[in-house]
């Protein structure tokens, strides 16, 4: 196994009851790179994403087979602490979901949940995270106002700041820009490119242009199967599998 793989799956299978949603997916996730997961609706890319931080554990009736590694260690082994795992692997959802609290309380939620009480340290973390998410200047004068009053794009960046405050290593993003307008989307994409230097990012997207714009590696999913994986530029210009070619050229999807 290569040392540069932050995460890796080996023959990963997922069943909802008896229905097989993921068929034997083996995929590497390289460190400090952006890996995009593309494919038509229902192909399993979101399901796959959620296996990486064990969010599928929350859905009753799911079974997992195969292995998922983080820094070379299996994350589905019985002695793994999910709470700690989700601290290292963070997730951003499609629809921004800030808590019904102030901006400050949202961002400080994670560190507080892990036991941090020192007010000064929390202040520092909140400021740092909001800056990292490119939101600080817009909200610095109203940190105590409700997060629900922010615009969609701002809320999504707030959710990012909230995530960055727990200092994860991997960021999982499930169609983070699909609910946003083009300008907010562009800001979010710039943010992702910036964050890549420090974090390993996996992004599920419906938008192929987006995948081409911001990702280093791309993986194409179809009907629960990982059809092809490769360097983004190559996958889009010279796809190996006919199905991939059909999808990226818009013949279906």
């Amino acid at each position, binding site marked *: 196994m290569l040392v540069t793989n932050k995460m890796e799956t080996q023959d990963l299978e997922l069943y909802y009851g008896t229905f097989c949603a993921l068929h034997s997916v083996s995929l590497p996730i390289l460190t400090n790179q952006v890996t995009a997961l593309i494919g038509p609706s229902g192909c399993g890319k979101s399901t796959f994403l959620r296996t990486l931080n064990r969010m599928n554990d929350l859905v009753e009736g799911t079974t997992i087979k195969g292995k998922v590694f983080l820094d070379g260690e299996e994350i589905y082994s019985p002695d793994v602490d999910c709470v700690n795992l989700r601290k290292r692997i963070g997730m951003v959802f499609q629809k921004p979901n800030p808590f*019904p609290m102030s901006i400050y309380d949202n961002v400080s939620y994670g560190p507080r*949940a892990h036991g941090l009480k020192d007010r000064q340290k929390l202040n520092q973390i909140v400021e740092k995270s909001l800056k990292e998410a490119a939101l600080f200047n817009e909200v610095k004068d109203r940190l105590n106002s409700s997060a629900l009053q922010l615009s969609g794009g701002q809320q999504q960046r707030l959710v990012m700041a909230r995530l960055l405050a727990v200092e994860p290593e991997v960021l999982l993003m499930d169609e983070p820009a699909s609910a946003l307008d083009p300008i907010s989307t562009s800001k979010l994409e710039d943010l992702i490119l910036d964050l890549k230097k420090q974090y390993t990012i996996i992004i599920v997207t419906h938008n192929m242009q987006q995948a081409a714009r911001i990702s280093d590696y791309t993986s194409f999913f179809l009907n629960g199967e990982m059809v092809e994986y490769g360097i983004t530029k190559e996958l889009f210009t010279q796809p190996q599998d006919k199905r991939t070619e059909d999808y990226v050229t818009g013949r279906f999807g």
Partner: protein
Amino acid sequence: MKWSAKLEEKVFIGLLWASAILAILVLFSIVGHILINGIAGLSWEFITAEPSRMGKEGGILSIIIGTLYLTVASLIVATPIGVGSAIFLTEYAKKGRVVRVIRFATESLAAVPSIIFGLFGFVLFVITLGMGWSIISGALTIAFMILPTIIRAAEESIKMVPDSYREGSLALGASKWYTIRKVVLPSALPGIATGIILGIGRSIGETAAVILTAGSSLGLPTSVFDPTRTLSVHLYILASEGISMEKAYATATVLIILIISINFVANWLMAKLVGRVA
């Protein structure tokens, strides 16, 4: 064709209006009847003086205090159990037979007539456990009576908290209990508060179960082991034993004013809570 459809609609709207007006009229006549007959007996003295001569004279101070004491005590017992059960049923219990049995039990509890609660409380708390007629016997009994109301309201409220909040919290590495404590419960607070207020409403008007468990002593209660008389019990005794219709109406007026005030406070509190959360 069209003409008769319009006529039909007008007739129905008329009937609906009539039903609504009838309901309001009934409410107003009952409340009005009490107020008209009772206002005369109201005075600062009435509220601050102790009853004398079995309630024929004097005031209702000890009774007001007893009512508040009993209501608060039953809430102190019912709220943690009710909210705790609701959290268990919605967040932790695996869907299946266990949950259905518990839910059936709480729904059935809601249907039990209050006199039976009174009998149960009398046999268990007053006699068997030796607590005698006391606030604590009454509070425990009333707590069981209002438990289904609180559980139901809390459950509905907790279920309405969007899953996206829970997912967001868990995805940050927070534990399930922390998520419930810091995100779910605060969001569910307005609904839980409603349940508590509905519970207060039910317990303040309760008469039969209270007589059987808290007794009907006129003295000022100083501890939870003292018996006490509540407003509804007092007005029942004054009227049925022919002691003083005048004082009975006055007591009823105080009770109604108390209930209306609680409703106002409840609505105000709800608006404030929802405003903070939304």
